[in-house]
């Protein structure tokens, strides 16, 4: 069986470099020149990444199901 994967993206035009995601999910986001970048675009499901996406004030982070592109976070 293929395990589920998530695809994590950050929209650099929306990100204001608050550093919230990099602090809430340190293994997953890093700030480069005041813009957040996901360390890995494809990840195993992980709660802290959902938390980061829900906490981003700009809704710049999207977590999708890698298989079908369904948005997992943030909630609409």
């Amino acid at each position, binding site marked *: 069986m293929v395990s589920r994967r998530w695809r994590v993206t950050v929209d650099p035009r929306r990100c204001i*470099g*608050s*550093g*919230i995601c*990099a*602090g*809430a*999910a*340190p293994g997953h986001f890093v*700030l480069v020149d*005041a813009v957040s970048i996901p360390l890995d675009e494809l990840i195993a499901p992980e*709660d*802290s990444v959902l*938390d*980061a996406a*829900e*906490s*981003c*004030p*700009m*809704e710049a982070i999207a977590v999708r199901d890698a298989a079908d592109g369904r948005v997992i976070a*943030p*909630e609409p």
Partner: protein
Amino acid sequence: MTETRQDSTTRAYPFSAPDRLDLDPRYAQLRQHEPLTRVRLPFGEPAWLATRYADVRTVLGDPRFSRAASVGRDEPRITPLQMASGILSMDPPEHTRLRRLVARAFTARRVEDLRPRAREIADELLDRMVAGGPPADLVEAFATPLPVTVICELLGVPVADQGRFHVWSEAIVSTTSLSPDRIREYIDNLYAYIGELIARRRRVPTDDLLGALVRARDSDDGRLTETEMVQLAAGLLAAGHETTVTQIPNFVYVLLTHPAELARLRADPALVPSAVEELMRYVPLGVASSFARYALEDVELGGVLVRAGEPVIASLSAANRDPEVFDDPDRLDLTRAANPHVGFGHGVHHCIGAQLARMELQVAVAALLHRLPGLRLAVPEPELEWKSGMLVRGLRKMPVAW
């Protein structure tokens, strides 16, 4: 190269009593020559003070620095009482669990929905102020009721009760303006008041933010304790009272004392958003620095080895004037393009109300420029009364004419 701690002397901090919105020149000297320095605050153990932009961002953003570790320590601070719980005393993942519950109410998108209402409030307040004729106190007539009405409507707190909770919310930002007993009493009153509003929502559910918190609490998946809910709501109410309220008159003061920049802004109101960012960078709102972060392991910072267990405070105001990041940092430039200031902090505790405050500040500045083209101080500048004994700098009153 790593310095040993004997090389630096311990300085009393804050370096001086606040004078208007001037930043003590010692910040610039330290940033250049001793980016991490030992300081002793009026209360608590000695600390490191970070003044460089890069180091300030590390202290606030790097998980090796902790707020939760301040609990149980005699935290360096300028307030007599120590904040021992609440959102600002937590680290991820507990912090994230709590913050997530309210974060979505403060996203840029949700805040945008509130803008028309904020404009309407601003217009009504200015109608009333103009009808009363000059002079008027801008603090009382405009800068206070605008953010207070916005945060009350968002939370679902009756604006009519303002007379009760406005006094109490000062306790959250008081250093010496209130006695420790009075601070405790006011905070208890504020919690009791929020408790009443919550009890009411358990009888009659509402769809405001307080109602949403009550639902999150009562869905009973252990996400939120009763105390956490009350503290969080009280914190939002008080923060919504004491920050933007102070910053609006500060912005007006800076603009009135920089007439050339004010003229540029009047000529091109499209500059308002960048002007608000520049004013956020330029105004050293805090009297001191951030809340202390404790190193969880040895960390090399600013040429110094900060040992595990040592507290560091980060100066947002010094970081915002770092020439490594901002060209000609002591100059107010309302058209400054890149402006990654840390006026709202950085990292997981980055101000949850930042988007809301930005929107309110934009609405306030735009409305004042548009409606009061002749806005000016109604008293000579030296007669302005500044607050004292508070965490933030600001005007007690701001008599203006137009």
